[in-house]
């Protein structure tokens, strides 16, 4: 039985006429790294601020370790927040910034000094204690902000798009660092981001949100390979989406029709016969069948013409027109293997056979 550090029950929040968060409920496990992911305006930051105590929900409750913290002000909640723009106190040194929470708790100065130094070691900023925030780079400031919150040993840490203002390379390095620190300290991280790649890299679970509501909650792999809606399929990663109709329901798969073609799709227990649905498959799951290759059997095969090829460095993406109404995006890793003959622009116009597994074709009802 998992221990829940935070239970969120039916939170509603409006700003005037705008619904920011709608009937949001979620249980967060102790020690997990969970991301709130969604486009701008989906309510993820609002929800985070409600957890922190900077906004109060119109209705609903937040429980932490069984205790209702919904009406407590931020300084009485046993969680801490890392702000998007760091919010380091400009009139204090790095040391004083990090020490702030301990100073407020009136801890003895020797203890504070030891703890701050430990934090500086943790975020790899030893020796920076005397600097002022305006003397730090973005990445350094972010690490100070993290240290400042973590020194308090919170059970839960809230992070509001902390890496948004950083360069790509630094952002990627920080993602790994944050993940390591979280694993090392065992703190529950609730992480808000609009970057789906970041969420996939860092999270144990992803909460995908749109327009104030939860669309899907799942582990990264599951949410990627088995999205529950066209929104999930297209927001995270890239996806083919085809409108189709359910033909028949079988024990281990469903038969669907896409533009007249009958294909086997992953079982969806909610699908009904003749129901209009969407079919989704990731481009990398659509494989090129070479005529000589008879070792692998595919559930589905379609023949079409290559109409577009784009080189992406380590992968190549190509478009295959199956029929007038059906176009499939596929991609494959560029390989050095001599036998493999990578697809290139010279293949445009060629006929090609595509194959994919029924488990990779998801039926989506919405």
């Amino acid at each position, binding site marked *: 039985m998992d221990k829940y550090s935070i239970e969120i029950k039916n939170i509603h929040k409006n700003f005037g006429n705008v619904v920011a968060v709608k009937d949001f409920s979620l249980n967060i496990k102790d020690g997990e790294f969970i991301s709130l992911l969604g486009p701008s305006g989906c309510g993820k930051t609002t929800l985070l601020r409600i957890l922190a*105590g900077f906004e109060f929900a119109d209705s609903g409750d937040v429980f932490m370790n069984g205790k209702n913290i919904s009406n407590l002000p931020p*300084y009485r909640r046993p969680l801490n927040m890392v*702000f998007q723009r760091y919010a380091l106190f400009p009139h204090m040194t790095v040391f004083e910034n990090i020490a702030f929470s301990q100073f407020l708790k009136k801890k003895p100065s020797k203890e504070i000094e030891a703890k701050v130094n430990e934090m500086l070691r943790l975020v790899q900023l030893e020796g920076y204690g005397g600097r002022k925030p305006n003397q730090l780079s973005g990445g350094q400031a972010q690490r100070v902000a993290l240290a400042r*919150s973590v020194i308090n040993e919170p059970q839960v840490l809230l992070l509001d798009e902390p890496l948004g203002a950083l360069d790509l390379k630094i952002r990627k390095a920080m993602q790994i660092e944050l993940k390591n620190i979280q694993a090392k300290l065992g703190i529950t991280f609730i992480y808000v981001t609009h970057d789906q790649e970041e969420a996939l890299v860092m999270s144990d679970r992803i909460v995908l949100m749109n327009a104030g509501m939860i669309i899907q909650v799942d582990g990264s792999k599951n949410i990627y390979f088995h999205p529950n809606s066209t929104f999930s399929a297209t927001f995270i990663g890239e996806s083919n989406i085809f409108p189709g109709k359910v033909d028949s329901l079988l024990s281990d798969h469903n038969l669907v029709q896409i533009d007249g073609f009958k294909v086997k799709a992953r079982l969806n227990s909610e699908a009904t016969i003749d129901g209009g649905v969407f079919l989704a498959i990731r481009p990398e799951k659509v494989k090129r069948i070479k005529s000589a290759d008879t070792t692998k059997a595919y559930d589905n095969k379609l023949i079409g013409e290559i109409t577009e090829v784009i080189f992406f460095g380590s992968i190549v993406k190509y478009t295959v027109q199956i029929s007038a109404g059906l176009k499939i995006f596929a991609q494959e890793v560029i390989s050095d293997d001599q036998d493999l003959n990578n697809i290139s622009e010279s293949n445009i116009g060629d006929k090609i056979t595509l194959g994919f597994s029924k488990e990779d074709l998801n039926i989506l009802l919405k």
Partner: protein
Amino acid sequence: MAIKKKRTHIYLLLPLYAYYGLFFLVPLGILFIYSFWLTSTTKIIPIFTLHNYIEMFTKELYRTIIFRSLYIGLVIGLLCVLLSYPLAYALTFKYKKLQDAILYLILISLFSNYLVRVYAWKTILGNYGFINQILTYLGIIKQPLEFLLYSKTAVVITLVFILVPYTILPIFSSLQNVSIDLIEAAKDLGANPTRAFFKITLPLSMPGVTTGFIFSFILSAGDYVTPQLVGGNSGLMIGRIISDQFGQSYNWPLGSAISYMMIFLMIIIINIFIWITRILKLRS
């Protein structure tokens, strides 16, 4: 070929420097020299002496008025800051939408003529003025409050109201630098609103408070029009005495000496203020 740094900006500033130098710095220098000279009934005697500086502290009148002026200036400076800060704070954090409108109102009051405002206070504070009339009407007093006009109190009230706009603006300006993020971060780390104010908001806005204090302190300690109109005898201030030395009393050396002494003492008081605020800013 190296490109020489162009110095045309110096030539453009020359007229301003010349004007400033000739009409401000040179006279200041002359008066400084005068402060060490003496005067007779007919002319100024150029001997170097500390007589004037000693006289202003040995003669009871001068000594009293000097300290009274500094004291009144200090009181007005502190009152201005204490009244302006809550207003500036409310404008920044509570009434963001009305911010511009109220700022305009404050600026409009600054544009009104100084003399007109002093006269207005004269009528408000008088025996038959607005305040006394209301208090009598409400039955709170039977005789008009006499201390309201022609007193130190009158000087303080008048100058505080005239100088509050000058104090609100720098405080408001420095409060803009206090991003609400910082206050939220402080609260998140465990500070209740009071501690967040004293540890974050106040230290960050202190430069504006200091500027506001300096404005109102200096302007009121040396003022001589307001004391003359509403100060009466007990509200006599040093500005009047200095201007007399350059007028009918004809003692420019003494006038210069008192002026420079006042400047010196005001600088000391301002530095004490800054030193105290620095202590308040530091954590224990």
